């Protein structure tokens, strides 16, 4: 594990005051309640943060969620098993494939369906493509919140390529409904794998370009290093998963440590934050972990293209899902914003009795007050951007 460094919080109240502040006691007077959101450019949707500020120093944060609540879990109880898939994709709309995969794996586990190798490989391929697209938005909006407009546009070009690929595959650009229970909606079009390979060659120089443009920019590092430090303890207490957890230096990746859908066949390295520019687990680490994860995803995509086996993607799609076995399953996968766990209870009918989604972004929001108290408003903006939330996934 990495050694701990001293944390510098600029202009913040002294550590003794933190105790008082965290209890909501106001040692200074003259504090101001500030509503950040739900309509605020930096809350990535409709998150509302109620801030208590002393000048520019944030002394208390209360996140309020639910502005994008769409009753996914309740709706899922009243539709049939295949009909739930589109709803799952609307949770984290930036990574629809990953969302659907988790649910589909849960149903498959319940029904005990073994899909063939081609289906697994294709699922990994589209999920990793989608992960890159999702990280592009995450990094782009992060930079935007720090005041750098330009990287967003460059990253959206990359994302545009991926969305084009996925559109060719599934007919939709964001809400694909491509991964189905027991297989896929249809096989890939001819020449699609070559296009993916082309994309990989296109993508290769993009990450060094991004590093030159943004990652090692002096101002950017100054803004992010030592800011919003999330210690491993805090991360584990709040159930943080995914890139945010790995940024603290905790080496844990579902794809490697509890492989699903054949991830054990791929050679890749989960990226962890090491406090290169500041403290381990600061905003810059959370940023760079995502950048490097895109490279790793690219590796996986290349391997998937190379080993693409033959087979029928609809081979194991069940004829009827009217009679499901009774019981309950819990499946988690590594989604771009942390672990997505689907807890499924079946009562034997054609509709799920209960669906519970455990999303990574929800836990991340909960941790915001713990890591940003005593910072400035600008730091809070950086922190909210760095934990990369999608409100659709938080509120479901």
């Amino acid at each position: 594990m990495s050694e701990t460094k001293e944390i510098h919080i600029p202009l913040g109240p002294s550590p003794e005051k933190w105790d008082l502040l965290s209890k909501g006691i106001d040692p200074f007077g003259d504090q101001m309640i500030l509503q950040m959101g739900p309509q605020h450019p930096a809350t990535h949707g409709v998150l509302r943060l109620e801030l208590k500020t002393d000048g520019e120093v944030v002394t208390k944060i209360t996140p309020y969620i639910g502005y994008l609540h769409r009753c996914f879990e309740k709706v899922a109880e009243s539709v049939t098993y295949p009909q739930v898939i589109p709803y799952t994709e609307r949770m984290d709309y930036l990574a629809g494939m990953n969302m659907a995969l988790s649910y589909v794996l849960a149903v498959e586990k319940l029904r005990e369906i073994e899909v063939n190798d081609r289906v697994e490989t294709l699922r990994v391929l589209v999920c990793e493509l989608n992960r890159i697209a999702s990280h592009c938005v995450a990094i782009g909006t992060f930079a935007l919140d720090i005041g750098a407009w330009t990287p967003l546009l460059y990253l959206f070009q990359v994302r545009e390529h991926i969305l084009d690929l996925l559109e060719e595959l599934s007919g939709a650009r964001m809400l694909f409904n491509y991964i189905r229970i027991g297989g896929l909606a249809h096989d890939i079009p001819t020449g699609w794998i070559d296009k993916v390979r082309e994309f990989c060659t296109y993508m290769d120089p993009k990450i060094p370009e991004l590093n030159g443009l943004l990652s090692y920019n002096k101002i950017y590092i100054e803004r992010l290093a030592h800011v919003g430090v999330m210690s491993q303890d805090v991360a584990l207490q709040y159930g943080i998963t995914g890139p945010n957890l790995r940024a603290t230096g905790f080496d844990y990746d579902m794809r490697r440590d509890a492989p699903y859908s054949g991830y054990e066949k791929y050679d890749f390295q989960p990226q962890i934050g090491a406090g290169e520019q500041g403290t381990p687990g600061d905003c810059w680490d959370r940023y760079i972990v995502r950048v490097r994860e895109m490279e790793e995803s690219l590796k996986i995509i290349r391997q998937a293209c190379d080993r693409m086996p033959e087979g029928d993607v609809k081979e194991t799609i069940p004829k009827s899902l009217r009679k499901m076995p009774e019981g309950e399953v819990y499946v988690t996968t590594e989604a771009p914003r942390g672990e997505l766990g689907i807890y499924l209870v079946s009562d034997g009918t054609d509709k799920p009795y209960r669906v519970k989604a455990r999303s990574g972004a929800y836990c991340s929001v909960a941790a915001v007050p713990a890591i940003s108290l005593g910072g400035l408003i600008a730091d809070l903006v950086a922190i909210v951007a760095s934990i990369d939330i999608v409100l659709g996934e938080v509120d479901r």
Partner: protein
Amino acid sequence: MIALEPYLDLIISVVYVVGIVLFLSLFALFATWLERKVAGHIQDRLGPMETGGWHGWLQPIADAIKLLIKEDIIPAAADKKLFKLAPYLVFIGSLAGFAVLPFAANLIGSDLNIGVYYVIAVTSLVVIGILMAGWASNNKWSMYGAMRSAAQMISYEIPVALSLLIPVMMAGTMSMVEIVDNQAGGFWNWYVFRTMPFSLIAFVIYFWASLAEVNRAPFDLPEAESELVAGYFTEYSGIRWAMFFLAEYGDMFVVSAIAATVFLGGWYAPFPFLDIIPGPIWFIGKTAFLVFVQMWLRWTLPRLRVDQLMYVCWKIFLPFSFANLLLVGLWVVLKG
């Protein structure tokens, strides 16, 4: 026949004032278009292309019309008098700077003998206008923007003034025209290249500090979109918002024009044989180049944090400016 002689001065001033307001508006229009184009090309896209055919050159006109006919919203809880007054104050503060900009030897609003000092002084109006706008909006984000802006502008006024003092010391006058006249005869006579490296440092400090003074990136904290929504003009819309906008672009022009005047030889060409090209073209060209650099920086760099901003001003710019001033003073004394 009425003798025109007594009225000539008056007519000239009126024409000049009207001309300057027109120029400012046209420049602001052009600058919005340029800003979008620069942003577009930096971001690997094209920017406006549709309105008006060639590279969307009519886009600013369309925007202006849109802004003019847009509903002017005043929040119910705002302090209406001050809310209405503030944009004009900011606009006047920005416009007043144009009075002493020497477009050419004889094309200047007024060749005040305190020209440089005057520009620094009228900028103060903008600070008050921004504080007024931020407070009158009755919006906490606006208030934050205004407080940041005022603190920032007051802090950065000091390095700006200290760096401007260096060419003033070298020229021995504060009159814009005389300062430019001292730089005639080729770019090696420009103040930015004389007394190397002091004046170059002064130029760099002036340019960066003036970026902060006109709230441009990477010092655009007062209007930092992602933090403070839109800073002190969050609540403004329509024509009043356009006033702030005009003032912002006017300020960009003024600070660039002052840099061009006192450091880059004003209306003089870099080589004497190029002086056949009229002075105003050189002057506006140099200024436009600096405006372009401002845009370039805006679309490239992330934004600083408020404490870093103050750090840069008080602990980097200020000591360097003072040391610089002292050394140039010594240089001037020893040389002459």
